[in-house]
């Protein structure tokens, strides 16, 4: 047990040292990948553990982005104040809408979250304080290493949260909700409270990621803040890596980001083609995610892939 925590600490230290030795292009890629990994991990809490797949976490990302941007661009507050504002907005939103929307299940829950994100984006588009559709410009800073470390810190915090959660009663409750919500309620799990808590936690992490991204890019507008494609990305990374596990989403996110980046800089124009093919092939042969594949391959070797095909096909 302690060995695992030690290994994790070492990995974090190594990652933290990277910007000091690696070329700055890697730092750029690293920051983006780490932020995506945090988003995937946040999604994991509600989607992987509790079984409520959200398609609208971009709503919280956008709130975090705009909270930070408005504070910094309009009120000239420091970054920390901006982040706090963004995070508070997101958590407040989660608590406010959590109860009604978490009564929906499966695809209906997915759609209502999607609708929520689109609605918020459309509202922000009409707000003068947010710069309407033109957006806001944040002060420029040249400390790019700061963003890398912040993103890394966020991912570490998020993953540690999930690790603790997985061992706790709260986590067990979430899993119970995923497996059979009615039975869980009967067994005394405070399902509504747990679900709203999970949503709020996801909202918090997602919003902070948004705030960091805003300051890093120095420019926000509704399209990029409430970016719909992020939703698909975080779900795919979490599911690809292994939902409901501690490290699955991290591995999935970092790997997919890496593949995408390498493709974009080597075969540039064919990049998206290969990316799509990689995803299709990977899912066909590793339907339970990378994490599971990693574990089982060691035990059963190559027949693992054939078994998957046989087991999961119609």
């Amino acid at each position, binding site marked *: 047990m302690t060995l695992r925590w030690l290994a994790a600490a070492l990995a974090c230290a190594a990652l933290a040292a990277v910007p000091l030795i690696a070329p*700055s*292009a890697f730092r750029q890629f690293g920051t983006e990948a780490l932020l995506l990994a945090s988003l995937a991990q946040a999604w994991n809490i509600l989607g992987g553990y509790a079984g409520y797949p959200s398609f609208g976490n971009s709503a919280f990302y956008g709130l975090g982005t705009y909270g930070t941007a408005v504070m910094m661009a309009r009120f000239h507050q420091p970054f920390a104040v901006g982040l706090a504002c963004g995070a508070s907005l997101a958590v407040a939103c989660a608590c406010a809408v959590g109860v009604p929307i978490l009564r929906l299940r499966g695809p209906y829950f997915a759609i209502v979250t999607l609708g929520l994100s689109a609605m918020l984006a459309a509202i922000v588009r009409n707000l003068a304080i947010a710069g309407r*559709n*033109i957006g806001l410009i944040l002060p420029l800073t040249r400390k790019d290493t700061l963003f890398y470390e912040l993103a890394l810190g966020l991912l570490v915090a998020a993953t540690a949260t999930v690790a603790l959660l997985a061992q706790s009663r709260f986590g067990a409750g979430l899993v119970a909700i995923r497996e059979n919500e009615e039975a869980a309620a009967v067994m005394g799990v405070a399902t509504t409270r747990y679900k709203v808590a999970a949503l709020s936690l996801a909202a918090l992490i997602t919003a902070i990621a948004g705030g960091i991204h805003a300051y890093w*890019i120095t420019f926000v507008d509704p399209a990029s803040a409430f970016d719909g494609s992020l939703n698909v990305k975080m779900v795919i990374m979490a599911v690809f890596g292994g939902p409901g596990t501690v490290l699955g989403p991290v591995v999935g996110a970092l790997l997919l980001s890496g593949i995408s980046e390498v493709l974009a800089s080597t075969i*540039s124009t064919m990049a998206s083609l290969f990316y799509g093919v990689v995803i299709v092939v990977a899912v066909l042969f590793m339907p339970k995610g990378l994490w599971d594949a990693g574990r089982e391959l060691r035990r059963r070797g190559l027949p693992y892939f054939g078994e998957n095909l046989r087991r999961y096909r119609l």
Partner: protein
Amino acid sequence: MKITILALGLAVLAASRPARAAGTPITLGAAVQMTGAMANTGRYYRDAYHLAVAQVNALGGVTVAGEKHPLALKLYDSQSDVNLGVRQYVELLTEDKVNFLLGPFSSDDALDDSSVAEKYRVPMVEGGGASSQIFSRGYHDVFGTLPPADDYFASTIEMLGKLSPPAKTVALVSADDAFDVAVAKGTRKLAHGAGLELVVDEQYPEDNAEFASILSRIASKHPDVILWSGHEAQALNFIREMKRLGVSPRGMASFTVGVPTADFRQALGADADYAFGMTPWLPSSAQRDDWFGDGEKFAQLYREKLGYAPDYHAASAVADVETIVKAIEAAGSLDPEKVRDAIARTDFQSLYGRIHFNPGGQIALAQTVIQIQHGQVVPIYVQDFVHRPDYPVPGWSQRLAHK
């Protein structure tokens, strides 16, 4: 034995490599939209950059302090993803170590990508972003060869004052992104100054363009002129919807985009006729150029080599390359700060027009009013009439009768 043969082989290979061109290459870098939703226009930039660099090299390259250097180009495909583009610009500067930067298409991309140039203190000359937002941040290293969005309709409104029957009422329709909001703001001022009344002033969301409602409103107000600002795909939709609903203003309809571009006219066919538009550039033998001869020769060469006609995006892109080359030669060095100062002082004649930047970093070029007549783009007015406009524009049913 084997090793000797190997060694000999390598020696032969090394000896047979062509002698390197004198001087190390000077590299320009950019991330443009070669695939994705913006690829339609992004490809003009990709192709124009390549053509310009090839032409510069064909005529001897760049002379720095007496030594000749070839020009090189490093392009990435940003896949119309703004965030990816930003990362690619950082990679261009830190990994590929390019000397200077060229820009992407679209104000949104230019806004984000130029921040990278400013952060790393490397000059960027971009020809794809016209929004004044790009140039009002007090940035030091960013220059643009598209004229300010606010003035896009200036020539058109000036022309309206000289036409008969006179136009009195205007319907303004604009998208809500940075570029179009700037256009709308500027146009309101210009219209007010010219004594035109805005009977309709509508903004539409750039990603959900439903024009039926707007056009029905316009139909009920009977404006003399429609001034429209947005993206090419939506301009196309707007015209089709105009035809379907039978809406045609008494005077004319003018669009900020689409009209100068070939595939826009092709997609609309005969429906594109009579539409007014604008362009900061038309291929002209009067625009002399140090590398291409003149604007007309450039257009010919472009069409020959690439199979399609260039528009102002391509010309703007070529101007960017030429600006950097001229600045390097004027500064006599590759030092970013010196070259940046040289760009700021730039003043020369090119196939695109006179290249000279205001203190904010943006070029000032008058828009030429153009009209599509029988499927061809005809220049109508810039400071004075060049050709006769087909005005007032006949209604849709009348056009069918004309044929």
